C-alpha cells in the first residue's frame, strides 16, 4: 500500500500559470523509486514543462510500459489519466488511444529495456507511423526493476555492478528514430534540467512523433565506475550540440541573439523552438546530417545531446489516415451507423 496524500504546503513561489494551475497541480503521488534515481528528475522536468506550457493536466494522457521508468507516470500529472500497459507495448496502446481521441496530448514513458529490448519492434513501428506523441525513454542501460541486468542499450565493454562485461553491441534508439522517420529527435540527461525542460516542451507541442532518449542513471544498479550510464560518466562525456529555448505561440519573443548563432524553428502550432547552436557545423533540420554527425561523434565516445533533428512541418498518423478532425470516441450512432435503409440496399445486392 503506497497511497500517501502529499502534504499541500503553501509556498509563495507556487504561482498559477495562464490556465490557473500551480506547479503543484502537475504533481502526482509520492515516488517510490530509489533516492537519487534519474527517473525522478525526469518526472520533475515533465512537471515543470507542462506547467510552463500552460497545459491543463487533464488534457494529457500518459502511457507507459513496465519498469521503474514506466511507473513514473503515477508520480506526475495526477489529474491526467494514466495507463501502465504491459512490458514493451506502450507504443501500440498509445497509438490506439491517440486514434480514439486526437484532442488529447499523448505522453509515452518507457525504459531502455521496455523500448530497446522487449519492445524494440513496437518502438520502431510507432516511429514509422508518425504517431503524434512525446515519447520519452528513461535510459539507464539496465533493467532497474528486475535488479540490474544489462538492457539492449548497454554499451559494449561497459561493466555491470557484479563485474560482468557486456559483449553485445548497443541499440541506439536515437539512430533508429532518425532512420525511421521520427520528426523530433533529441537526447538529453536527467541531470541537466536546463536542457531537458525545453526539450520536453518542444516535444509536447510537436505535430508528429517526438522522441527523447534521456540518459537517466540507475543509482542502485548502474552508477559505478565501468558503467557508461553513470552520473560521472555522462557528465564527463556530454557534448551538447545546442541549447533550445522553447517559445510558445502565445509568448512574445524577447531575447536577441547574434545572427548565425541561432536557428529558429516554428512548429505547426505556431510555437517557436530557438536553438542556440553550440556547434557551428550542426544543422538540426538535416536528418541525414544528424545521423552521420551522431555516428561520428559517438564513435569517439561522446554522448551527443540536445535537439538533434526537427522537422517543423511534421505530419502524423491521423494525416496519413485522413481521420476526422473530431475525436472518434465522441461519435455516436448518428455519425457511425448507416441505418436500416442502407442495410436494405446491401441485402438487395446480396441476393
Amino acid at each position, binding site marked *: *500500500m503506497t*497511497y500517501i496524500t502529499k502534504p499541500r504546503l503553501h509556498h509563495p513561489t507556487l504561482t498559477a500559470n495562464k490556465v490557473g494551475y500551480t506547479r503543484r497541480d502537475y504533481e502526482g503521488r509520492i515516488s517510490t523509486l530509489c533516492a537519487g534515481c534519474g527517473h525522478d528528475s525526469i518526472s520533475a522536468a515533465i512537471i515543470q514543462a507542462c506547467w510552463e506550457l500552460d497545459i491543463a493536466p487533464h488534457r494529457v494522457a500518459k502511457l507507459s510500459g513496465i519498469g521503474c521508468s514506466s511507473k513514473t507516470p503515477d508520480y506526475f500529472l495526477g489529474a491526467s489519466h494514466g495507463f501502465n500497459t*504491459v512490458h514493451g507495448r506502450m507504443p501500440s496502446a498509445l*497509438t490506439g488511444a491517440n486514434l480514439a481521441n486526437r484532442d488529447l496530448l499523448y505522453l509515452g514513458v518507457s525504459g531502455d529495456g521496455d523500448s530497446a529490448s522487449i519492445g524494440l519492434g513496437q518502438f520502431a513501428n510507432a516511429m514509422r507511423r508518425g504517431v503524434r506523441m512525446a515519447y520519452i525513454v528513461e535510459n539507464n542501460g539496465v533493467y532497474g526493476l528486475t535488479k540490474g541486468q544489462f538492457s539492449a542499450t548497454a554499451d559494449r565493454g561497459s561493466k555491470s555492478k557484479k563485474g560482468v562485461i557486456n559483449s553485445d553491441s548497443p541499440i541506439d534508439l536515437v539512430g533508429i528514430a532518425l532512420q525511421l522517420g521520427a520528426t523530433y529527435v533529441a537526447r538529453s540527461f536527467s541531470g541537466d534540467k536546463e536542457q531537458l525542460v525545453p526539450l520536453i516542451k518542444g516535444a509536447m507541442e510537436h505535430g508528429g512523433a517526438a522522441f527523447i532518449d534521456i540518459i537517466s542513471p540507475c543509482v542502485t544498479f548502474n552508477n559505478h565506475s565501468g558503467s557508461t550510464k553513470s552520473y560521472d560518466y555522462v557528465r564527463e562525456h556530454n557534448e551538447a550540440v545546442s541549447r533550445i529555448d522553447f517559445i510558445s505561440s502565445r509568448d512574445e519573443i524577447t531575447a536577441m541573439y547574434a545572427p548565425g548563432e541561432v536557428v529558429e524553428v516554428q512548429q505547426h502550432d505556431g510555437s517557436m523552438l530557438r536553438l542556440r547552436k553550440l556547434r557551428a557545423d550542426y544543422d538540426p533540420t538535416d536528418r541525414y546530417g544528424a545521423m552521420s554527425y551522431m555516428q561520428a561523434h559517438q564513435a569517439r565516445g561522446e554522448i551527443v545531446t540536445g535537439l538533434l533533428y526537427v522537422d517543423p512541418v511534421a505530419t502524423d498518423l491521423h494525416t496519413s*489516415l485522413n481521420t476526422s478532425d473530431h475525436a*472518434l470516441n465522441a461519435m455516436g450512432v448518428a455519425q*457511425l*451507423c448507416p441505418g436500416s435503409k442502407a*442495410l436494405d440496399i446491401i441485402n438487395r445486392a446480396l441476393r
Partner: protein
Amino acid sequence: MKPIESINDFVIKFANVNGSGSASANELFAKAILRMGVPVSPRNIFPSNIQGMPTWYEARVCEDGYAGRRGGVDMMVAMNPQTWDADLAEIEPGGYLFYDSTRPLPPSKFRSDVNVIAVPLTEITNAVYTDPRQRQLFKNIIYVGALSVLLDVDADVFEKLFAEQYKGKERLLESNIRALHMGRDYVKQNLKAPLGIRVKRSDQVGDKIFVDGNSAIGLGMVFGGATVAAWYPITPSTSVPEAFQKYCEKFRVDPVTRQHNFAIVQAEDELASIGMVVGAGWNGARAFTATSGPGISLMTEFIGLSYFAEIPVTIVNVQRGGPSTGMPTRTQQSDLISCAYASHGDTKHVLLFPQDPHECFEHAAAALDLADRLQAPIFVMTDLDIGMNQRLCKPFTWDDARDYDRGKVMTAEELEAGKDFGRYKDVDGDGIPWRTLPGTHPTKGSFFTRGTTRDPYARYSERGPDYIYNMERLLRKFKTAADLVPQPVLRNAPKKTSYGVIYFGSTTPAMHEALDVLEADGVHIDALRLCAFPFPESVNQFIAAHEKVFVVEQNRDAQMRSMLVNELDVNPAQLVRVLHYDGTPITARFITRAIRDIVQPAAAVPLRQKEAA
C-alpha cells in the same frame, strides 16, 4: 450402372487450379442456382498457397435448405489434371464426370460406374480467343455455360446476373454472355441434356441473402459503431478487416470534408494490433481486431490486461485448424479453451458463437455493446467454414431506434455533482464498476490504469482483502455477463426424450439436418444451441433434464464439453463426446452415425424398445 437421378438435391464439386480465376465463375454458377429459387451452400477448399495449387469448390444444391456439408460428390467438374485420380475416386457410383476433352485421355483414366461428359473446353476457347488471360477467364465462363444446359439452369438467369455485375461496362457484359452461350451451344448440339441431376425452379430462397461470415462481421462492426480497427494478416480472418475497410469507405466518409470517421491500422504483429485496440478501448472508442489461433496466442498478455484492468475490446477469432500453424486453410472449433481462459492467472472471457453470416453481423454489433457494458474483452468465435464461405441466410436487419450501449461511463457533470467515483468499486451488485474516459474533468475522475492489483479506488494495493474483493467482483461481473449474452436456442423433439444434444456455431446446419434424419428414424433428441459463454442457468437445466447429452463440436479434445463440466459441475459421464476434427466441415452424416451408434448400438434396436427393456 444407373445414373444418379435427383432434382434440386445434389453435390457438385469443381476441381480447379488456384489462381486460374475460377472462383468468380464458380460463384456465378452458385448464384444462378439461387436465382432459380433453389438453395445452394458452397464451400471453398483451398491450400495455404497463392498460385498453381489445387483448389476445390464444393456446392451442395438442396431444395430442403440444408446448408451443412453433405459429403460425397454427385458431379465432378475436373478442371485440374494434377488431382484427377483423387477427384475421380470421389464421385459416387452413378455420378457424373465433366472434363475438358481437348486432349484425349486413355480409358484407364475413367471409371465404368461414372457417366462421362466430355467437352473440349480448351479447343472451343482457343478457337475464339488468343490472349492467354482471356483464354483462361473465358474458359471458366464456357464451362459454366456448358453446365447450365446439363443441369437445366435457364440462360436468362445468367444474363441477368451478368447485367447486374457489368452495369455500365457493356463490352464486358457482351463478351461474358457470348462465352456463356459458346458453352451452352456446344452441349445443346453435341450432348444429351439435361442430366439425371438437375435444377428445377422453386421458391425456397425467398428474401434470403448470400454472403460470407467475414463480410458480415465487417459490416456488423460498421453498424455497431467500431471506429478503430487494428489487425495483422492471417488466414482465415484477413477478409474481416478488409470488409470493414470496404464498408467504412462506403459509409463512414464525411460527404463534405471527405474525412474518415474510422481508423484502420495494419499493425506489425498481433501484439501491436491488440495493443492498439486496447489503447483505443481505454480511451473510449469502440475498437476491434480480427485474427485466428496463432494471433490469439500472441495476444494473450494484453487479453489478461484487458480482463484485469477492465478495458472494452472486441476480438474476432475466425478459427482454423490448430495447433501451431496447424491446418491454416481448414476449419475447426479448437480455440475455445485458449480464448475462454486466455492469459495467465485466473481469467475468464465472454465468447459468442454465431451460427451463420446473419448472426456474424448481429454478434459483431452485440460484441461492441457487450464490451462497453462489461468493460472486458469479448470474443466473436467464428471459423473458416462460416467466415470464408458464402451462405444463404436471413437478411441483415437493424432497428433504427437502437442506440449504442456505452455502459457505465461517468460524465463530467456527474463528477462535478460529486458522484462517488471508485473505478473498481461495485456499487450496484452486478460487478461492473464505473469508468471515466481520459480528459473528462479537470480535477475529478482521473485514475491510473494498470495490470497490477489495486483497491476499489484504483490505488495500487497488494493487500489480500483488496485483491480478493476485486477477483470476486470480476466473478460477479462474469455472472452478469451470462444474462446479457445471446441466450441458448432450444429445439425440442416432438416426443419426450432422455437424450439431449448441445452444439454451436458452424455445426448448426449439419446438426439440424442430422436431427431431422434421426427424427425420421424415430430417434428423438432435444437440442440446445449455445450462442455464448458464460453459460446461463438454462444450460444447466437442459443438461439436468436429460440422461445423456451429446456435445457435438469440431475439435479433438472436446473443449466445449470440458467447459461445461468445468463451469457447471455436471457429471462428465452425462456428456457424450461427438467430435469431428479432420479440418473438413462436419456433416449430418457424421453426426447421425455417431449418435445412432450410441442410441441404437449395432443391432439398431429402436429407441423405444430399448428403453422399455
